C-alpha cells in the first residue's frame, strides 16, 4: 500500500491511497484503502492515509478518527495520530501519515517499521523505515 497526504500553501488538505491489497487474498476482497473514512480521509482540518491490517483499519474507521479527535477533543495532529494508533486499533496493526491545515505533518504506527517520508515548507525533510 502507498499513500500521500498534502496541505498546500492555501491550507487545503488532500489525501490519496493506492494498493494491491494482501498477498494470497481472495479474489473480490476489498480492504481499507478505497474506503473513505477508513484508509483515506481529508477535510478542512487534516488529511490522512492509512496502511496495514485492512480489517482493523476498517473497523476503527481510522482515517476519519484522526479528524474527529482533533475536532471534538481539540487534540493536535500528532496527539490525534498517537491516540488513534494506541486506542482505536484493538489488536490490529497499522500505520498512518497525516497533515493538518496549519502545515503540521505526523506519522504513527504500531507495526515493525513503516516506509515513510515527510517534508515541510520551512525546510524540514525526513525519510525513515524503523522507529
Amino acid at each position, binding site marked *: 500500500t502507498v499513500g500521500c497526504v498534502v496541505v498546500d500553501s492555501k491550507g487545503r488538505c488532500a489525501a490519496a491511497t*493506492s494498493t494491491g*491489497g494482501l498477498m494470497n487474498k*481472495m479474489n473480490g476482497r476489498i480492504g481499507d484503502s478505497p474506503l473513505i473514512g477508513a484508509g483515506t480521509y*481529508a477535510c478542512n482540518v487534516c488529511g490522512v492515509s492509512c496502511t496495514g491490517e485492512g480489517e482493523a483499519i476498517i473497523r476503527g474507521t481510522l482515517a476519519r478518527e484522526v479528524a474527529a479527535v482533533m475536532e471534538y477533543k481539540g487534540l493536535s495532529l500528532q496527539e490525534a495520530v498517537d491516540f488513534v494508533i494506541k486506542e482505536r486499533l484493538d489488536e490490529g496493526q497499522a500505520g498512518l501519515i497525516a497533515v493538518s491545515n496549519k502545515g503540521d505533518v505526523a506519522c504513527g504506527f504500531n507495526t515493525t517499521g513503516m516506509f515513510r517520508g*515527510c*517534508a515541510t515548507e520551512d525546510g524540514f525533510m525526513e*525519510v525513515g*523505515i524503523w522507529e
Partner: protein
Amino acid sequence: MGGWAIAVHGGAGVDPNLPPQRQEEAKQLLTRCLNLGISALRSNDSAIDVVELVVRELETDPLFNSGRGSALTAEGTVEMEASIMDGNGRRCGAVSGLTTVKNPVSLARLVMEKSPHSYLAFSGAEDFARKQGVELVDNEYFITEENVGMLKLAKEANTIVFDYRIPTVGSESCSAVAESPIQMNGLPISVYAPE
C-alpha cells in the same frame, strides 16, 4: 497559518530482516516522491493535484505494493484499489477490483470529478476507465517475479501476507511466515488462511 507540508508512505509492517540494499532502494524512492511533491507545491499546485501526482509515481515504481508490483491474489492475478479525497469540499472518489488500469489513483479522481458516484468497482470501474480513456495495460504488467515468489511462500505457509517484502531467500522464511505470530483482529492469521 503554516506553509505547505507533505508526507508519503510505502506501507507499514516491514520485515526486520529486509536487506540494507532494499532499505536503501525504498528510501531513495520515498525521497524521489517527496521531491516531486515539493517542486509541485513550490509551483503552487493544489493539494489534490499533488497527492495524485505523487501516488501515480509510487504506483508506477514496482518497489511498493500498488500498481506495478502489487500483491497477488490467491489465483496469482492483481486486483488493485485506490481512493482520493479533497479536504476542500470533502469530495472523494474510490475504485476497487481494477485489473488493467495503469494508475488506479487517477481513475479514483475521475470517479470524483466525472461521475455522479464516489465509488466504482470491478467491471463497472473498468468500463468507466475505458469511457474516460485512461491508460490500460495487461494484468501481467503489474506482476513482478518477486511477488510470484512471495505468493509461493504465502501459499506454502498457508497464510496471507501484509505489505511485507520478505527477501526472496529459501523456504526457511516461509516457515518464519508460518510460525510468526501474525494476528489480524486479534486472531491468528492462519484463521484467514482458508481465504
